[in-house]
């Protein structure tokens, strides 16, 4: 059986949606603190140094994005079964 037959029931999958991964790349680029000056702390936001607050906020955005991508782009025929 060739691949097109094997995955016929898969109506949509996140891996094949290009812009989904560009958004991930952008969010990861913000979440990973490579761009702050070494030794930076900044003001405290909800008790966290600014650079940590930015990372945690971005992880929340990443999780929200993931939940939406799973809902929108992982579609399989008869997935209730």
């Amino acid at each position, binding site marked *: 059986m060739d691949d097109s037959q094997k995955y016929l029931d898969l109506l949509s999958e996140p891996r094949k949606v290009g812009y989904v991964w560009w958004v991930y790349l952008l969010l990861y680029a913000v979440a*990973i603190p490579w761009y702050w000056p070494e030794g930076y702390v900044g003001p405290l936001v909800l008790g966290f140094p600014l650079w940590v607050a930015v990372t*945690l906020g971005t992880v929340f955005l990443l999780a929200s994005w993931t939940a939406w991508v799973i809902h929108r782009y992982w579609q399989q025929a008869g*997935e209730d079964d």
Partner: protein
Amino acid sequence: MGEGLVFGPGALMVVGLYLVSMIGVGWIARKKRQSDSMADFYLAGRSLGLAVLFLTLYATQYSGNTLFGYTGKTYRIGFEWTASVVFMFSVIVGYMLFAPRLVLLARKEGFITPGDYIRYRFASPALTLLSTVLMIYALCNYTLAQLKAMGAAVEGITDGAVPGAYGIIALAVIMVIYETLGGMRSVAWTDVIQGVVLLLGFAILAFLIPIQLGGGLENVVAKLGAMDPPKVQAPSFEGATKWISYVFLLGCGAAIYPQAIQRLYSSRSVKVLKRSLAIMAFMPLTTTLVALICGLTAAVVLPDLSKAESDQVLARLCALVMSESVLGYWLVVVVFAAALAALMSTADSALLSMSSMLTKDIYLPYFRPNATEAELTKFGKISSWVIVVLLVLVAIGTEATLVRLLELKFEVLIQVVPCFFMGLYWKRLTAGTALLGMLCGLAVALGLTLAGNPLVWGFHAGVIGLFLNAAVCAVGTLLKPVPTD
């Protein structure tokens, strides 16, 4: 588990009842079995609904290492360990790169183990065997860490009256009894209890530790900044590359854990699985982040601990809370139950996975090709007991810190990643190329580690091995002629 965390008879009885209830759940799960088939024993008959699937995914993913190892690591390096929140989230992104296709195939072809997929996709006994051996090795390592932590926990709450070795034996026996009674059904149902206790434990920790002991998070961070500034400062560029490495190491590695893959196989439907994974994406913010905050509070409240002592900081914090009030005492009992839940839920899942792989991927093809399903299930149960005995013996006789154990198992496990991430999408990726890539990746990962270079420019040796492994697979695939039909 730590100095001063000693439980009275009432608390020990509550913990004892909690443990015995696990065997009760195992017994009920046994009564609910539909058949003696491997799919029923190892995948609960592919029947897990949303609540059970989510809680078993949660309790399995968040191990004793999250509670003890991560608080200890935060104690040592401070906010730089916020990396753990990012990489634990990344596991869900890892699933999205292969789960839709794997789940579809698993349902059509009746896969039980990850090895079933590799056998189906590549038709190569050598690649299937090597992948299975690597996965079993990683799981042995993982289970070993949980067993050792169990011993330390029991020794701590009984003030040394029960030696760690006896604690390991007792908890391992309870675990293997309920696991062999009902297989995945037992493990998943006990995970429900363990997952709820774990969530409750983290919720208590989130309020108790920073507020009661530290006077609030702002106060903790301000004090830490004054005491040890690097612990609140942004990391260097090389430190940030280490975050990227962790995202690859954990995001890829934890997603292809055999017990995680078998949970993908066990869901009642794709809809249930999708919802469970969507909720799981948020769990690092309620779990890993709490471990981080506890580690920071410990750095302020209990400074100057040695590296080995720092893996026990959570227990030491709990001991402080216990000594302050009766309410604190009982809240710590719940936290301790959560710690046991984290350890046992991870270890039992890994144990069940190892048993299934030994049975389906080694015993069946190499020793008893004509065995019946009932015989295989029976062999699987016996193998669980044998694995537990061997691991308990090793756990009693060795020493190592928790986080180092975690890193070493991922170095090896992630070399199987291209078989899933690439194999499901690139039909021209052959078994020979995948095997060559895996061997090259292993050689680099183990070679660098053994040569004393576990990190190169902030990247873990296993991740560098994975890059080479993936490159070999990519080049080999590109060089293979496109079929004319």
